[in-house]
């Protein structure tokens, strides 16, 4: 490895110039496609750089506003989700929930760990495209049950066992796309839950089988409420593409909560081209969604949960400041419970990857025992330890969020507001609809 001229990339030598257009990753992908004749499938969310919460800064209090004492004064974090129509809304201690991830994509112990960690912190976890497992229900104090297009494992008993129901229209990694679980992960148990033969590739539909469009969705939601006697909050999850319209239509259809997932949001497996080129960044999705809620007079009444690339308390604080009521995390939670752990580096190397890079989650060979249905691999995973680590991570994220909120003078994290934010770039200013730092300029709007 050369370090000359600051270039530390492996293989670089004097006189070599890498193309910005045909860089090594691009060349490698063309060569791979030419060899294999099929698109690349991987897990995770968009890896490309997109305008993000990192492009925003919070304005701490000074003369015009006063801060709250970091170690003394209260800064509440609890949130109620779904009190618009449901008899039993979710009452969470923290505004960070665990996003939907399927048993099938994840091992049963990994789902258990998510439940353990979330429950310890008083927040919810969410099923995925594979139904509800006893491990998950048993270890999740508050569990959101997803109604997906595939309807794998869907049944009224689990609907009633759930604490909320999430109608999944799309997800940020692949809005407009269905799912895929390759045969390697269709174990006997997964196959039985999904009513499929063992070992075949399983396709999850991209559209619901029994409704099309917002008018149908309204009736579908009514049916779900009837089946569950109007007890459960109904969430509608959309991948971020046209958030203004999608959020407005979800509200019109009767959603209690809208979950908005930006393009950085992860998936267990989808085409790389889909992950990187469809949908919009989380940052860009929030303001139009909030605008729709405000115009309909339901901001804070229909709660907005934002997901896609949330990593730390700064991301949470900024999402809340833009108008979200809570956030949801997926990839970060998996990393917290042990995904891509550096102590497994040798084992990642054996399957052609490295810790920090492993994303072939669909292959079922995860040495961490998280993205697998192989009993031996899954047995390596310690659900109790994973749960503790998730709780530690969530605790840290919440403390960070409170630290930032107090600095902005807020006694409740949801009291953060757009006026607490500025942008570092013109793009982020335009997307987040906050001023470019040091100016009063919000591109695309009148100066405020």
């Amino acid at each position, binding site marked *: 490895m050369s370090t000359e001229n600051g270039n530390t990339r492996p293989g670089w030598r004097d006189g070599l110039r890498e193309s910005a257009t045909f860089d090594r990753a691009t060349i490698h992908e063309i060569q791979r496609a030419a060899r294999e004749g099929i698109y690349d499938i991987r897990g995770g969310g968009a890896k490309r750089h997109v305008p993000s919460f990192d492009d925003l800064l919070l304005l701490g209090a000074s003369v015009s506003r006063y801060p709250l004492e970091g170690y003394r004064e209260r800064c509440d974090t609890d949130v109620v989700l779904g009190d618009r129509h449901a008899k039993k809304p979710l009452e969470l201690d923290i505004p960070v929930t665990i996003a939907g991830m399927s048993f099938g994509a994840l091992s049963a112990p990994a789902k258990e760990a998510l439940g353990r960690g979330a429950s310890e912190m008083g927040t919810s976890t969410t099923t995925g495209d594979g139904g509800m497992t006893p491990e998950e229900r048993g270890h999740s104090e508050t569990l959101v049950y997803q109604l997906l297009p595939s309807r794998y494992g*869907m049944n*009224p008993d689990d609907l009633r066992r759930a604490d909320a129901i999430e109608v999944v229209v799309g997800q940020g990694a692949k809005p407009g796309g269905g799912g895929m679980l390759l045969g390697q992960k269709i174990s006997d148990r997964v196959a039985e839950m999904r009513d*499929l033969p063992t070992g075949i590739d399983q396709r999850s539909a991209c559209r619901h089988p*029994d409704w099309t469009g917002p008018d149908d969705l309204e009736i579908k939601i009514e049916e779900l409420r*009837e089946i569950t006697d109007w007890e459960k909050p109904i969430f509608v999850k959309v991948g971020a593409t046209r958030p203004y319209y999608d959020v407005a239509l979800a509200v019109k259809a009767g959603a209690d909560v809208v979950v908005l997932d930006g393009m950085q949001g992860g998936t267990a497996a989808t085409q790389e081209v889909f992950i990187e080129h469809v949908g919009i960044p989380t940052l860009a999705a929030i303001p139009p969604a909030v605008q729709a809620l405000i115009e309909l007079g339901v901001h804070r009444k229909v709660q907005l949960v934002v997901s896609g690339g949330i990593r730390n308390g700064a991301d949470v604080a900024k999402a809340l400041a833009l108008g979200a009521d809570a956030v949801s995390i997926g990839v970060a939670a998996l990393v917290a419970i042990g995904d891509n752990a550096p102590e497994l580096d040798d084992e990642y190397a054996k399957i052609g990857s490295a810790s920090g890079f492993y994303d072939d989650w669909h292959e079922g060979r995860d040495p961490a025992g998280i993205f697998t249905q192989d009993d031996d691999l899954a047995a390596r995973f310690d659900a109790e330890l994973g749960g503790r680590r998730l709780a530690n991570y969530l605790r840290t994220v919440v403390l960070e969020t409170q630290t930032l909120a107090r600095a902005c003078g807020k006694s409740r994290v949801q009291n953060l507001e757009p006026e607490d934010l500025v942008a570092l770039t013109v793009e982020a200013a335009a997307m987040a609809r906050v001023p470019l730092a040091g100016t009063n300029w919000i591109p695309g709007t009148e100066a405020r």
Partner: protein
Amino acid sequence: MSGAAPDSTAAPSRALDLSQLSVRELNAALHEAEDGRWEVLDPVGKHAIAAGLDAELEVEIAGNVGYYCAGMNKRATVRVKGNCGVGVAENIMSGKVAIEGDASQAAGASGHGGLLVIEGNAAARCGISLKGADIVVRGSIGHMSAFMAQRGRIVVCGDAGAALGDSIYEARIYVRGEVAGLGADCVAKEMRPEHLEELAELLAEAGIEDAQPAEFSRYGSARRLYNFNVDDAGEY
């Protein structure tokens, strides 16, 4: 499986009149009931009537219903004396739902168990995503029926529309009339004795006496698309 029509010699049914009650009040009453015969009056196309039942009830609905009638039904027997809207008996788990008239799209969608009988015709996507339920249609069914159907059986005494059984898994389809076209990976299959036998049972359960199993053809998965192969990409 009990018969389609409530037994006239049994205890008298209790009437629930939707001109007086809301759908919520109706369903709340049916959810609380543990057994008995119930008659739903004046449904006038309302949605989600008798959705989410989970008891040995016999429910007769006197007229047309809207979307998702008898959705996710368990154990109950529901008879609709009229036509029904989208998604009748969607995700049915068990029990029996019988429609005297026609059914709109997505009848029996993703049904896991039990029996849906449609004495008229069913529109597009009948039995879409089927997961183990049985559907018997006296008339014809529309296009894209049994799309991605995984388990269960669909019996059609009339004709089937285009793209029947597209991307079908292990569900079995029996059609007496013409099939406008088969979807990806769906093929005609041999009628073996066990198929004639199960078809006779299904027809009998549905109360259809004027159709003979030997008049039907069987369709199912060629299983060529079960594991993705780039050479099959043109098939989708």
